[in-house]
């Protein structure tokens, strides 16, 4: 969303990290490939349109439950829109757990290099 609107940013390239190209004699094309012009996805108004479309599809999948028999097996499945809100909440919970775990276990990605590691 916001990401598209932002100015192009160049990440820092660490030459040490560059992997081997495919072949020295037949190097893969690096720069100057196709698509140097603006893509339709770069237009904020198109992205906004996509968002609206996405929300409409979301609403449609929930409302479709009114017309389609779901044959619930477990009792919880009979709740309206279970898969929708369960999916959303499960993902939110997993992101929160990941965030919490990250507080404990995140380290700079030079962590093992700094240690000498072998």
């Amino acid at each position, binding site marked *: *969303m916001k*990401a*598209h609107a*932002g100015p*192009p940013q*160049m*990440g*820092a*390239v660490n030459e040490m*990290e*560059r*992997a*081997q*190209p*495919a*072949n020295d004699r*037949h190097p*893969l*094309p690096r*720069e*100057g*490939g196709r*698509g*140097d012009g603006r*893509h339709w*996805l770069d237009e904020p108004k198109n992205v906004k349109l996509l968002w609206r479309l*996405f929300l409409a599809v*979301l609403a449609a*999948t*929930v409302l*479709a*439950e009114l017309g*389609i028999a*779901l044959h619930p*097996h*477990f009792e919880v499945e009979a709740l309206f829109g*279970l*898969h*929708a*809100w*369960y*999916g*959303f909440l*499960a*993902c*939110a919970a*997993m*992101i929160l757990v*990941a*965030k919490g*775990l990250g507080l404990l*276990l*995140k*380290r*700079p*990605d030079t*962590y*093992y290099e700094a*240690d000498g*590691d072998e």
Partner: protein
Amino acid sequence: MSEWLVHPGLLLILGAFALPWLRGGARSVAVLALPLLALFCLWHLPEGARWQVAWLGYELAPLNVDKLSRLFATIFALMACGGGLFALRQQSRLEIPAAYVYAGSAIGVALASDLVTVFVFWELMAVGSTLVLWSAGTKTAWVASRRYVMIHLLGGVVLFAGVTGHLLDTGDAAFVRMAPDSVAHWLILVGFLINAGAPPLSAWLPDAYPEASWSGTVFLSAFTTKTAVYVLLRGFPGTEFLIWIGLFMVFYGIVYALLENDMRRILAYSIVNQVGFMIAGIGIGTEMALNGAAAHAFTHIIYKALLLMSAGAVLAATGRRKCSELGGLFHSMPITTICGTIGALAISSFPLTSGFVSKSMVTQAAIDGHLLSVWLALAAASAGVFLHAGIKFPWFVFFQKDSGLRPGDPPASMRWAMIGFAFLCIALGVWPEPLYRLLPYAVDYVPYTAAHVLTQLQLLLFSGLAFFVMLPWLKRTPTITLDVDWLWRVPLPALARAAAGGFRRRRESAAARAETLAGRLSAGIRRHREPDGLLLRSWPTGSMALWVMTMLLAWLLLYYLP
């Protein structure tokens, strides 16, 4: 000789040794033809044991075809072919031969129906995969391969102990269904699980796989874990605690992938996640669940290879692997973007992709078995797959902020490998019957019902909503997340160094003490044996006669005493 060549695995292994001698077009043809030839041999083998070998009094059957082994051998050969095509331009001349030894050994495990042959090919796989890692030629790959081989040798020792125990207990080498009821069977199960990426040693996988070359990871993703799934399917179906192991792997994979910044390590964590679904299915153990686990292994190999191919194409073109340095590549890599997105949809089990027709059988088995908690966990995990692999991977690599990079799509060999596997992902999803016919049990399952499609769409699309709503929380940072490999990368080496230092000090002080002791001992000996020492002194004859007379008198006295 021709009799030996009908073994598709040996064919691939022996063929791999011929590859380094070939150049140019002949090499390309051989790379593509070898797996296809293996596939041809495989499908012309009738079911049943073909070779019988007596070894140390045990009956071995190294080549035995049934539906399950044919399914896995087929996907291994297909994978070798697709990976070979993708890797044609790989500079390293070691990588493809090593990968073919690796793939051939995986086929060897799938076709073996005795534990001894399984073990031999199992170890050969460890050798092949380590060589694939080495062929990347970087320092990080070298140190990662040392940790990788350490874990796999450990797993091999455990498996060997288990197999030996099983041979002694039963006197039979046949690879049949087992239960964790004896020490030997537990050891076998643990050996299998280590290769499956199960806890607590699961970190070997995301540690090592992303360090391989842009094509090497594609091979690595396919064989080791899925061979482990195969042997668990055959050896330990219905072992209940596998359900919980599987569910742990599923969520472990999601959480770590959410935190990860390296695009290929995200996909490596998602291998653990996907194998978790299969292992949970094996634990449920009904025909539906086992079919689901086998089918999921089949489709997983294809879409995971496809995802790693698209990541490999990005790595080869840009030399970057961190999400925080990528983005906006859809501008100039449309084919890679589309293929990667198809793989991402397939791993998320989107309707009309291969994941939808395979993973839902495991979920269905949980429903059929009235396992509510398992079903809820699997549903949450399915949503989580879309979150960490289905959207996160393509979003951060191909879309998000524009990194300004404009590399083109990769060369034809890599493009066609991706297009072929993307086609398979869609084709199996639209037309699952051929896959269902290959499964070990008869399939009584219809994936495409209105209710199933609708609930799956709800689950996935709302998981997508969660991703975009919580995007600021998922912003990539240049960090890693410590995993259990920390244990054998930091404290254990430190402990070993400290122990070695302490050992050296103690050895030095012990040596010093031994020296003084030896000095004192030799001084004592010298004192007694010197020319005038106690033992070497000359004695006068008179004193000898006096002592003899004294003893005789004493004897006489004692004799007459009552």
